[in-house]
């Protein structure tokens, strides 16, 4: 299969990434409905396309090896290990019986283990599965995520504490997309020791907003957590959808100015801190809008981008991000530029650097690989 590599460069900047070794990794679906794991090289070519049996979701990079773990979309049953140097699938890991994956995971900092968010679907209990990287990813254990529906999770600076977004929504593979406990759901952000599996502390949105599902988080270099949520209640209610949280402090819910908040459609897709941790941006695909926030929680601005979801920071570029969408575009944006802009709401057409890939519906998440 050969994906279309036509690249439409807009604006004056013809260099895709600032560094020749930088590549973007994301899953995508083409017009024919085939699903791929893809890599875009610094010249903007689709340099790798691996056909997948179903839609992928997030991708995790091994800390030392040129290896990516590609997680199947919820309720998925596979994780594929891709050797980014040889461009081959080196291992296919399948969910244990009675479990399904939630689409996210990470490698421990020493590179010895892969952790995956999983659902024990008969009990509905969330778990983090532990896989041994050196023994061909055999599953060597698990511990509780301390909530229902663990989705995204990240590792803190101490290399051992996990922050887990327990979305609160119970699902079962027999009802792939059905959320079966919306009335009683109680999501949380749990700090869990990856060594003992014990809960250190947890944080919940206030009771009034118990249907705010905590799905995606990012953690800055100094352990500040940015949270992107999805509201499962009636569409005309307008809860805050974005939050920040640090250490044992309570979660601080953030609201954009009214005209922007109402455009988020109660749904945030992905979140990323800038490389310097000073700002973070959140995608809202249903509203076609991407909001910018300071680490202190103040609203900075927004740009418009239909179906935007994937977002990643760029190492060594303090305030630069890439944002992908379901219409084939990837844009690069800068949160400092937004801070300095007079207009705080940038239409898509005025974004400086936009790249368009034919036949590529970029999926929820995108990461940058400097290999």
């Amino acid at each position, binding site marked *: 299969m050969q994906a279309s590599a036509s690249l439409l460069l807009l604006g004056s900047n013809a260099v895709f990434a600032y560094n020749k070794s930088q590549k973007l990794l994301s899953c995508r679906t083409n017009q024919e409905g085939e699903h791929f794991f893809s890599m875009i090289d610094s010249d903007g070519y689709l340099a790798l396309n691996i056909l997948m049996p179903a839609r992928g979701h997030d991708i995790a990079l091994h800390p030392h090896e040129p290896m990516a773990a590609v997680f199947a979309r919820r309720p998925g049953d596979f994780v594929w290990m891709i050797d980014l140097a040889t461009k081959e699938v080196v291992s296919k890991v399948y969910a244990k019986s009675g479990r399904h994956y939630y689409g996210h995971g990470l490698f421990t900092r020493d590179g010895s283990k892969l952790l995956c968010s999983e659902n024990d679907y008969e009990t509905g209990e969330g778990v983090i599965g532990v896989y041994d990287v050196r023994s061909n990813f055999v599953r060597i254990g698990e511990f509780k995520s301390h909530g229902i529906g663990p989705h995204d999770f990240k590792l803190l600076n101490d290399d051992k504490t996990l922050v887990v977004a327990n979305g609160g929504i119970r699902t079962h593979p027999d009802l792939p997309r059905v959320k079966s406990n919306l*009335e009683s759901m109680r999501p949380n952000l749990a700090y869990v020791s990856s060594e003992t599996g014990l809960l250190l502390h947890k944080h919940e949105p206030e009771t009034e907003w118990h249907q705010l599902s905590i799905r995606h988080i990012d953690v800055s270099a100094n352990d500040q957590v940015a949270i992107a949520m999805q509201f499962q209640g009636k569409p005309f209610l307008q809860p805050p959808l974005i939050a920040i949280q640090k250490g044992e402090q309570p979660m601080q819910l953030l609201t954009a100015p009214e005209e922007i908040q109402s455009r988020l459609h109660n749904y945030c897709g992905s979140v990323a801190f800038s490389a310097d941790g000073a700002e973070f941006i959140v995608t809202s695909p249903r509203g076609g809008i991407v909001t910018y926030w300071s680490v202190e929680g103040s609203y900075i601005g927004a740009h418009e981008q239909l179906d935007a979801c994937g977002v990643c920071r760029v190492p060594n570029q303090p305030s630069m991000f890439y944002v992908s969408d379901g219409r084939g575009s990837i844009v690069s944006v800068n949160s400092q530029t937004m801070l300095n802009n007079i207009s705080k709401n940038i239409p898509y057409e005025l974004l400086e650097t936009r790249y368009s890939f034919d036949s590529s519906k970029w*999926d*929820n998440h995108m990461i940058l690989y400097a290999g």
Partner: protein
Amino acid sequence: MHKIITCIFLLLGSHAHAYDFQKIADKHILPVYQELHEKTSALDKLAQQRCDKNSLQEKSKAAFIAWQGAQHIRFGPVQFLSREHRFAFWPDKRGVVGKQLNALMQDEKLVADDFDLTQKSVALQGFSALERLLYSDDDLNDKSCILVKAITNNLNNMSKGIVEDWVAGKDPYLKYFVNPNSKNLIFKNEIELASQILNSLFTQLELVIKQKIELPLGSGIEKARSKSAEAWRSKSALQAIHANISASHEMYRSAFSSELVDDPLQSEIEVSFKNAFSLLEQIEMPLAEAVKNIEQRERVEALRDQVSSIKNLISRDMASKLQLSLGFNSLDGD
């Protein structure tokens, strides 16, 4: 690999839209849900009076077909309280409905005064479980009658709830639907709402092709899967597909057809719907049997191709003409 460097000239506002959402609601959506409510209400009334398999089959089928005629509306109150998933549990690849039913029949809680079906698995709550009870070889007994009555009551409550959530109360969904504008909390502009309707239509046609037709077809006649046909016990699969396509046609007509006046695409879409209906009429046996019959199977395949062509005309040609887009991440929920 070649690289094209081009400039994009944005095509903005070259099409004048005049969507009449009030009319779409009045002439299509609300009547569809009122019909569903009438049929589920009649079914429930009979079930509460007379729990008898044979007499309930007809009304159950009528309500099921009314649900099939509403399934293409995949937004709004039908999504509140997970209603869309509680009406029917299908496809049921792992036989969950059967397993859950067996377990419930052994469960003493079923006969308790405070038995509440809405707290049970969604697989038990709707038409899929009801069909099994009404089309099994066994007669209904006291226990299964409790469940039949609970299901018909649940179906009726959900249908009533949908109608009410559309039109009644402080915050009727209709209020948002008829007037998209920048202050509207759900729909900011016409394009957004029209895209929602388009996505709904697309998803339904895709479901008809992939699940309702291709699942039972299988990869060849020896691999045909009769029991993958929807509602094969009551032999309702083709009627369900007819209701789906017919409802999609109505939705297209009430929302988009008038946008295509003087455009050849309008008659192309009409012709392809017409062809789909005539192909449906040519299938002379229930879908579960047709997929295993050499001659009939070809007609089922032709139907599949015809629905695909409707889907492509609407989701590609029409969408690009009207500058609407199908969502990807925005349809997601992850």
